[in-house]
């Protein structure tokens, strides 16, 4: 070795993103003018040598000394060809490692002065160990990266003796990136170089293993699916061979056929088809399979466009209604009106009717009768006690066991989109944390909204606008206002005795006879017997008890016939005691004698009207006003108003004012167990108190009702028909009513109107004059007296 290191100068090829190792061939392409000039200069020499240095940054186009790694490779150009203008393809072979001394960047190409940097030649057992480890690792990596790699490749690896060459080969085989490759080229010892390669290769193997794992997993998943598919295809083929249709396939096909035949609106059909194609993709065992099938069944069964033909024969409808129900003129008129509208405009919105009335007056059967008259389907759903919105609107299909709501279910049962849908007991809707069914009803009953009613289960718009909704209720006060607002109220007041008699003769008796198998000849129940039953054995606004009683009579007669010792018989009122035992209700007979302080009031109850007596008594040396008989607040207040009015007009009634100061009053309203409320007992209270303080008895054959004000006005009240009927039942034929209620008398049957006497009161004085005749006289004289005095 000379002291002076060898230094020579050669053209330089700067390399982007790659490192040329000694001993290795590398194809290169040269495009930069500088590189082309360098190659041409090198080729012009005898030995065709160039220097190859790797750029630190691949994006630099004209590198300076600092842009190149200081260690590179001297190479010989083995082959050169031109791929096009200004583009060279080269094959270069690395010769030796060199260190850069000085880079000459003058034009036209880079030249460098370099000094050879011989490759390290250290030997140790570590190197041997690393070498064999590397060969093994490389084999592994090769197997992972290219399972089909030619055997020779592996042979080359193991046959290699020079550890550095092995390192270089591996580096280029696994395409190390430039930085790593450069580090390998610069390695000062073989051990270092091998360690580097080992480290990189280990990482590479891990990455490859992971990649392989991922792909095999993906593949095995796919394989399972493919396998299932294949098996299913085979099963189908076998079934076809056997002449059986694949279960689920047949099902899907059936559904498709039905879909094609069904007359569905376009958007519904689209949705149904989408669900069907989902179904076809599912194996029949899938949990969704049944869900979708039931859903499709439902969609198919719903009457999307199917409607029944309305019978528009008004005369016939009237006849049907009359056949089924006696009386109820208003309701029948309203139905016929709607029929008339339908005749002129077939697309008319159906009204939403609400029948309000006591139990047993025939609200529900009226619904059926309407359906019959219109020739529509009838469906009924009871809302009583319903407290879950989902019952009306259904559950979304995501829930297990989801069902459509009751409305859609009813539509399915009806099989037509224009049935009469009766929502029974709308006043008995419940509500709780699950939601408020009344709110859902708002949508259903709104003609503006129910054209596109969306059930949660179906999630498709269903047209409810053709449905004739009929709701029933016993009382209105529990129905939410917005709901009440949407409905057309039709009141069915209780029936009068005469009406009941007619109903019994026309419907109840024939029905019961038929049920017991008797003929009209075998058992006849004359009118007075029926009257006896209605007055003594039943107390109701409707006719249910009456029907039961007639049924009992019929059964007793039937028993006699069955025992064989009876011929046709006529049931007399006297026979009733024998049959039923003593009368359970004493006739609400007017009290014949009434002491001062008692007045006859009239009350409205859910079962019709009732007569009630208000009793007042003085408590000498007592104080204030005591009220008993389960009176509500409004009623208590009206009692106080009555007392104040009497007190303030004590002079007019010639009452000693000391009475008010020195004694208390107790007012009691029997029957004590029944809660009562409302302002309509005001006039009765006033009458009772006036009678009490004046010690003049009120007339026992006069009943009264009306609200009073503190200044003595009498205000109109509700339930006139029921109250008047109750008075008549009790045998009281004179009724004092507020003047404002005069118009309500039209609701009364004509014979009742003719039979009864009505007094219309504007002021409390009018009431007192009619109810307490002696007081009336006293007031008259007081008046004349006052006039005299004034004169």
């Amino acid at each position, binding site marked *: 070795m000379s002291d002076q290191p060898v230094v020579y100068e050669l053209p330089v090829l700067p390399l982007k993103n790659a490192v040329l190792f000694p*001993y290795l061939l*590398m*194809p290169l392409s040269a495009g930069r003018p500088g590189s082309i000039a360098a190659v041409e200069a090198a*080729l012009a020499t005898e*030995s065709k040598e160039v220097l190859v240095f790797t750029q630190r940054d691949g994006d630099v186009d004209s590198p300076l000394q600092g842009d190149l790694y200081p260690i590179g490779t001297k190479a*010989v150009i083995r082959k*050169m060809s*031109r791929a096009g203008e200004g583009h060279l393809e080269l094959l270069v072979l690395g010769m030796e490692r060199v260190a850069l001394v000085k880079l000459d960047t003058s034009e036209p190409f880079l030249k460098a002065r370099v000094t050879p940097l011989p490759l390290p030649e250290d030997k140790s057992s570590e190197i041997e160990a690393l070498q064999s480890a590397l060969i093994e690792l490389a084999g592994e990596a090769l197997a992972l990266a290219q399972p089909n790699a030619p055997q020779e490749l592996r042979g080359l690896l193991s046959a290699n003796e020079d550890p550095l*060459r092995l390192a270089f080969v591996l580096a280029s*085989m696994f395409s190390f990136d430039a930085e790593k490759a450069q580090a390998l080229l610069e390695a000062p010892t073989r051990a270092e170089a091998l360690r580097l390669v080992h480290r990189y290769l280990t990482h590479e193997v891990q990455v490859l293993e992971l990649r392989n794992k991922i792909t095999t997993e993906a593949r095995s998943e796919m394989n399972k699916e493919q396998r299932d598919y294949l098996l299913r295809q085979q099963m189908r083929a076998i079934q076809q061979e056997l002449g059986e249709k694949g279960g689920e396939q047949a099902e899907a096909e059936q559904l498709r056929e039905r879909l094609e035949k069904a007359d569905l609106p376009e958007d519904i059909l689209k949705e149904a088809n989408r669900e069907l194609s989902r179904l076809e993709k599912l194996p029949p065992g899938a949990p969704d399979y049944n869900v979708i099938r039931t859903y499709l069944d439902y969609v198919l069964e719903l009457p999307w466009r199917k409607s029944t033909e309305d019978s528009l024969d008004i005369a016939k409808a009237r006849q049907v209604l009359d056949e089924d129900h006696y009386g109820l003129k208003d309701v029948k008129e309203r139905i016929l009106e709607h029929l008339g509208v339908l005749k002129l405009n077939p697309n008319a919105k159906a009204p939403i009717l609400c029948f309000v009335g006591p139990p047993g007056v025939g609200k529900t059967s009226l619904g059926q009768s309407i359906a019959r008259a219109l020739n529509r389907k009838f469906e009924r759903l009871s809302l009583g006690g319903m407290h879950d919105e989902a019952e009306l609107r259904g559950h979304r299909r995501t829930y297990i066991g989801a069902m459509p709501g009751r409305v859609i279910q009813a539509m399915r049962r009806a099989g037509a989109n224009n049935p009469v849908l009766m929502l029974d007991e709308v006043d008995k809707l419940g509500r709780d944390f699950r939601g408020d069914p009344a709110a859902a009803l708002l949508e259903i009953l709104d003609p503006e909204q129910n054209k596109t009613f969306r059930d949660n289960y179906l999630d498709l718009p269903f047209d409810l606008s053709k449905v004739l909704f009929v709701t029933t209720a016993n009382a209105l006060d529990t129905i939410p206002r917005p709901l009440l607002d949407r409905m057309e109220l039709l009141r069915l007041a209780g029936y009068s005795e005469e009406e009941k008699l007619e109903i019994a003769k026309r419907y109840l008796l024939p029905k019961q006879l038929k049920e017991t198998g008797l003929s009209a000849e075998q058992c006849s129940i004359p009118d007075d017997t029926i009257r006896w039953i209605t007055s003594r054995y039943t107390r109701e606004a409707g006719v249910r008890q009456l029907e039961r009683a007639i049924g009992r009579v019929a059964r007793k007669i039937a028993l006699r016939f069955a025992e064989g010792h009876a011929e046709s018989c006529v049931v007399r009122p006297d026979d009733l005691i024998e049959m039923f035992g003593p009368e359970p209700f004493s006739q609400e007979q007017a009290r014949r004698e009434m002491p001062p302080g008692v007045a006859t009031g009239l009350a409205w109850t859910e079962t019709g009207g009732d007569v009630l007596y208000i009793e007042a008594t003085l408590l000498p040396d007592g104080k204030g006003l005591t009220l008993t008989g389960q009176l509500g607040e409004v009623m208590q207040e009206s009692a106080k108003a009555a007392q104040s009015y009497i007190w303030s007009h004590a002079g007019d009634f010639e009452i000693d004012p000391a009475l008010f100061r020195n004694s208390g009053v107790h007012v009691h309203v029997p029957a004590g167990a029944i809660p009562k409320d409302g302002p309509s007992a005001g006039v009765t209270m006033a009458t009772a108190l006036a009678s009490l303080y004046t010690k003049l008895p009120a007339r026992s054959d006069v009943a009264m009702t009306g609200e009073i004000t503190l200044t003595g006005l009498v205000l109109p009240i509700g339930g006139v028909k029921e109250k008047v009927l109750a008075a008549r039942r009790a045998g009281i034929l004179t009724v004092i009513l507020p003047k404002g209620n005069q118009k309500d008398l039209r609701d009364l049957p004509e014979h009742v109107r003719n039979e009864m006497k009505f007094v219309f009161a504007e002021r409390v004085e009018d009431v007192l004059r009619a109810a307490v005749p002696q007081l009336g006289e006293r007031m008259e004289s007081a008046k004349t007296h006052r006039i005299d005095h004034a004169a």
Partner: protein
Amino acid sequence: MRSRTKIWAFADDAPALWQPSADVYRTRDGWLLKFDLAGVRAEDVMVTVRGRRVSVSGVRRDLIVEEGCSYYSMEISYNRFERSIEMPADLENARVTLEARNGLLLVRMITKGNQEYV
């Protein structure tokens, strides 16, 4: 300049950069080896025989054909070369003669005569 593909390769014997092709003949009195060494000057070739191994090494220096011309493409390998051939018999004592003919190097090795001499 960048690596065109990820192809890798390496040359066999380290310092040499290329290997000439060779034919081997059996002759009546020994062996004839023919090397494809066109364009190599006679003084740049060295033949060594060590045991059964015959090696030919040297340098092919490019000769510039004309002034002012430049390569359009290049396929011939230049620079150092070496080719070793393992012979079936020991040739250490063979008589070796070299002849350059039309760009081929003929290496003649006569063994019979030697044996006769012994």
